[in-house]
């Protein structure tokens, strides 16, 4: 946020915004496609219980690339980052508490 209270609040963002040139988009696409292949490779391999971790890791990287380049978080302002982070954080909180219950319910008491 602006520290100059005289300034109109708007105007500052979106000035540097520019649509991604085609070449860059293609690069992003190939990276994503490569990651997708990797995800399939991991998925078709016989890693046992680490498989789920590995393939989720690949998916997470993929999602990050997608968000950063395709969804233009790269050139987004702080507020947008905050919004994106908040959504992830709150989802995390939901997972944290609910899964805690599922993982600890059977445990005895103190």
């Amino acid at each position, binding site marked *: 946020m602006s520290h100059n209270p005289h300034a109109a609040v708007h105007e500052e963002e979106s000035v540097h915004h520019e649509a991604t040139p085609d070449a860059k988009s293609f690069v992003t696409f190939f990276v994503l496609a490569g990651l997708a292949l990797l995800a399939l490779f991991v998925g078709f391999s016989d890693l046992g219980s680490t498989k789920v971790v590995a393939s989720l890791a690949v998916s997470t990287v993929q999602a990050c690339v997608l968000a950063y380049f395709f969804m233009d978080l790269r050139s987004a302002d702080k507020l947008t980052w905050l919004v994106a982070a908040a959504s992830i954080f709150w989802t995390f909180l939901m997972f944290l508490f609910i899964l805690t219950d599922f993982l600890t*319910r059977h445990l005895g008491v103190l």
Partner: protein
Amino acid sequence: MFAFMDTPLLPEQASEFSKEYDVLFWYITGVSALGASVVYALLIYCCFAFAKKDGVAPKRILGSNKLEFLWTIIPLMFFLSFFVWGVRQYDYAINPPAETADREYTVVGKQWMWKVQHPTGHREINEITLQEGVAVKITGTSEDVIHDFGIPAFRSKFDVIPGRYTTAWYKPIKVGSYHLFCDQYCGQGHSQMVGKVHVLSQENYAAWLEGLYRVRDGKNPVDGSPAWEGRKLFLKLQCINCHNRESESRAPTLEGIHNTKRALLGGSTVVADDTYLRNSIRNPMLQVRDGWKPIMPAYTRAQVTEEELLNVISYLKSLKPGDLPSRSEMSPAPVGAPNIPDPAVPPVPAPTTGGTR
């Protein structure tokens, strides 16, 4: 207009936990009253002291970090004290102590009744009878939807959940009968899913286990007690053909017989103690009642084993006026009658998910 007049002010303290509970409850009440009083006092003071007066301008006050700090930290301290105390109490209330290990009751909730099974094999419906001073553990589950087994006088409550077991425990300390409520909404009959908790003194409880003590009138001996078994035999052995509610002309009614004086043929009297009852069955001719024909057959060991005989005697001892079954009742009473086991009730489902708390 009001049919009852003893409106209670405070709930009964009928379990050990209820006493401790109330201490915490009143502690929180005290702190809350204090906190609210501070707020109200300030409010009243300001409303009077600073009501608009001509010529008096309002002050320009922006705030005070010191005060903000104070009224963050002081309530927080109190709130945390609630928390700590509350956790200890919760811990105490949901962890059955070791002494309850062999006194585990099972309750099964079902739209809309409670079925209780005692460790002794006694079974009750919508009622649970406990002994004063003896801690018991309750394990609950449900056959259909979620219910909640709540006993206000014990300050106890826990949800019973289909497919899972949950537990609670109590140590009743006061003889009496208390409300048992279903506290989790479970459909149309939710408010009918109520019953009673009976806390009995040690003697009465022992008698109750026998089937001799009734927690209320008009009730058969408790399911699972010797007397209850005796009742079944009474029907099975056809005693009911002669001894029944309908008429006394054929054979004497046996209600309230225990320890009363009986007039015998020949003018003598005898006290109907256990031996008398026993003789009356094994060898009725020995002591025939005045006014009746000696038509009662003798029941030999082949017909009634010694064990069964004990149960029958227990039943006879438990008979109160109005208890004797009617002649038509050759088989167990219809489903739904109090204390009759429900043949339609399937066994308790095994837990499929989660664990026990």
